[in-house]
């Protein structure tokens, strides 16, 4: 085996092992508990009426959020048909940046907005499922709209043009664009559904008890990973089923050949009723942006109060930034190796896709519990890297996104360029340094940006694995949300929002500098 191949195989193996670690840990603990007779298997299969309700309500909430987001996304994106290419790039980058802002921050601003609205409309519910649905929908709206756009962009525009010659534009949307985009729309639905199903930060703020939160509560009460795993199994079955059902769609979404390339030479024209719905979709997104920024700025109070709350959280901020940097350093080489595996055809490629997608289907607390279990295994506790565990769980949760981004990047590169590098470069190091890395750089930069933004927002797994004396900024905000004053929370949330936007802007500026034009078109 060539040294290069051996390194790649080892990195891929390590990456896949890391992704499966929480599940392996949970299985080991489950088997030991079963052998010791301390696990109650009936918990997994015999649902009490409360748990059955929680499961139905949690998956129903996630389906409603994902479905509504998709519908709004379809309307919004049909309006984007009329937008010029350069403006479209800006809108898409803004959507991406907004999608990176943690869900709980959006939830906080909506909580404030609802409280303010209740002075005018006292009957408006401040807690419960309805307001949880609304806050989750609005928090995930930028992501839903962005993913819907990617799904639309996967449709070959020539097929749309062929339809427009014989039928109205609304008929073309209904009978050509939507059916052709269906697999990608399904994948977009699955992404949002999985995020919503595995998140508890938003519903918990509005007093809605969801299954993901109950897993955390169950573990806190029993301190038994096996029991928590069995408890989580019904939700895990649902999320894994959704993930497997949409796996080919997710792959199609990533492989779509027409991204950012084609625009209508003559934008479609729609009937008045459809235009009204489009205007409503645009209005909703605008409201979301206004509520987020105005809510945070108003609640943060004076600049002095803002800087005071930031200064008070400097240790957590430093720990969070260090964690984000570590996640990037660990994830990128592993994801790069894994992306090559995702490119493979046949069974091996399909298996790689399933492994990469599994962490997306596992609720965040369960990943944390799984890693704690690994650390508690005899002989491993000495090796267990306690202080960097928040980084490790973020790698497990978010490095798959980096692998998918790098997979997309590799598909855009002509393989002959790598062959040419092998022929003309002085040696392998020279080829990697001067050809491979520059070609892959846009994907690496985008991956780093995504990893930084998601790591800053991670809560569910970090809360479980975080070592004593160390807390991330998100943990501090989460604690403040329950016990602290609102101006402190808002100030810290504003800071995280600014950091997320800075990470996105940094990514975009770096890409512009590297590609010399609008990065998203070349990327």
């Amino acid at each position, binding site marked *: 085996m060539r040294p290069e191949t051996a390194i790649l195989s080892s990195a891929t193996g390590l990456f896949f092992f890391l992704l499966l670690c929480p599940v392996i840990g949970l299985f080991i603990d489950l088997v030991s508990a079963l052998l010791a007779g301390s696990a109650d298997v009936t918990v997994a299969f015999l649902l009490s009426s409360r748990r059955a309700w929680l499961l139905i309500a949690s998956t129903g909430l996630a389906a409603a959020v994902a479905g509504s987001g998709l519908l709004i996304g379809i309307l919004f994106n049909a309006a984007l048909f009329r937008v010029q290419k350069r403006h479209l790039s800006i809108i898409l980058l803004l959507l991406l940046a907004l999608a990176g802002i943690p869900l709980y921050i959006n939830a906080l601003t909506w909580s404030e907005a609802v409280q303010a609205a209740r002075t005018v409309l006292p009957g408006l519910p401040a807690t419960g499922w309805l307001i949880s649905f609304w806050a989750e929908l609005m928090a995930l709206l930028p992501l839903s709209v962005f993913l819907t756009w990617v799904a639309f962009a996967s449709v070959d525009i020539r*097929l749309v*043009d*062929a339809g*427009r010659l*014989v039928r109205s534009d609304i008929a073309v949307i209904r009978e*050509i664009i939507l059916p*052709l985009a269906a697999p990608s729309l399904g994948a977009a639905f699955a992404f949002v559904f999985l995020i919503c199903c595995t998140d508890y930060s938003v519903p918990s703020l509005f007093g809605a008890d969801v299954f993901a939160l109950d897993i955390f509560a169950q573990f806190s009460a029993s301190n038994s990973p096996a029991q928590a795993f069995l408890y989580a199994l019904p939700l895990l079955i649902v999320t894994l089923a959704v993930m497997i059902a949409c796996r080919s769609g997710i792959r199609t979404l990533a492989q779509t050949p027409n991204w950012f390339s084609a625009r209508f030479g003559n934008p479609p*024209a729609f009937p008045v009723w459809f235009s009204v719905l489009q205007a409503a979709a645009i209005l909703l997104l605008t409201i979301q942006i206004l509520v987020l920024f105005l809510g945070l700025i108003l609640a943060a109070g004076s600049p002095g109060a803002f800087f005071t709350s930031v200064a008070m959280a400097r240790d957590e901020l430093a720990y969070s930034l260090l964690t984000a940097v570590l996640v990037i350093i660990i994830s990128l080489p592993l994801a790069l190796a894994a992306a090559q595996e995702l490119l493979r055809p046949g069974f091996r490629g399909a298996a790689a896709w399933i492994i990469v997608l599994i962490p997306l289907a596992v609720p965040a607390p369960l990943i944390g519990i799984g890693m704690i279990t690994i650390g508690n295994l005899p002989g491993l506790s000495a090796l267990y890297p306690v202080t960097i565990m928040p980084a490790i769980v973020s790698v497990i949760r978010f490095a798959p996104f980096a692998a998918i981004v790098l997979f997309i990047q590799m598909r855009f590169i002509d393989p002959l360029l790598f062959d040419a590098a092998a022929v003309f470069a002085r040696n392998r190091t020279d080829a990697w340094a001067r050809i491979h890395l520059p070609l892959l750089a846009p994907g690496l930069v985008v991956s780093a940006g995504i990893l930084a933004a998601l790591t800053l927002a991670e809560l569910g797994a970090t809360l479980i694995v975080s070592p004593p004396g160390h807390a991330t900024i998100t943990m501090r905000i989460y604690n403040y949300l329950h016990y602290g004053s609102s101006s402190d929370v808002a100030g810290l949330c504003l800071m995280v929002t600014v950091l997320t936007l800075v990470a996105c802007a940094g990514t975009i500026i770096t890409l512009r500098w590297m590609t010399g034009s609008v990065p998203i078109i070349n990327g």
Partner: protein
Amino acid sequence: MIVLDNVSRNYGSFPAVDRVSLVIPDHARIALLGPSGSGKTTLLRLIAGLEVPDSGTITMNGRLVSSRDVMVPPSERSIGFVFQSGALWPHMTVEENIRFALADLSVAGQEQRTRSLMARMGILPLGKRYPDQISGGEARRVALARALAPGPATLLFDEPLTNLDRPLREELLVLILDAVREAGSCMVYVTHDEDEAETIGGSIIRFDRGAIQSDGI
């Protein structure tokens, strides 16, 4: 009659079609001949209403259909278009591809027209197949049947025989010319092949760098 008056279309600073004026009489057969990237396809798309001109106007039978301010939707121009790739909808069967263009007819009318066109094109046994289950030559026949289905006044062909071997190209070109004659439509046929342009048997317009270099109308 289609009249293009001083029509221009730019992509950024690149003039794809540059101040083109052209009259296409009813029932005309026109071959638009030119090298790759000369703007032929953009000109067809402008006529079809798939592109908005940056300047100039296009009228059809005296009605203004394209200008910067006025755009009649492509579906209201009575135009059939055979794309270079065929552009068959992969989620529809051959039959459904053709029937999609016949929404104005009753179900029985759609059925009858679809079967008659499929028989004319020699693809009757392929009705239930999907585009990825037929050959390249068969796909071009389906694309031709779909373009002819609503009985358009004008048929536009954008290098419809690209990537086919010569005997098949010759066979399909004869089929296209017969079908256009039977339909009584006007025809604009884009090609970069001199022989193909000659075979069309009408006027040959030489097109390069977005402009007409010479025409035989």
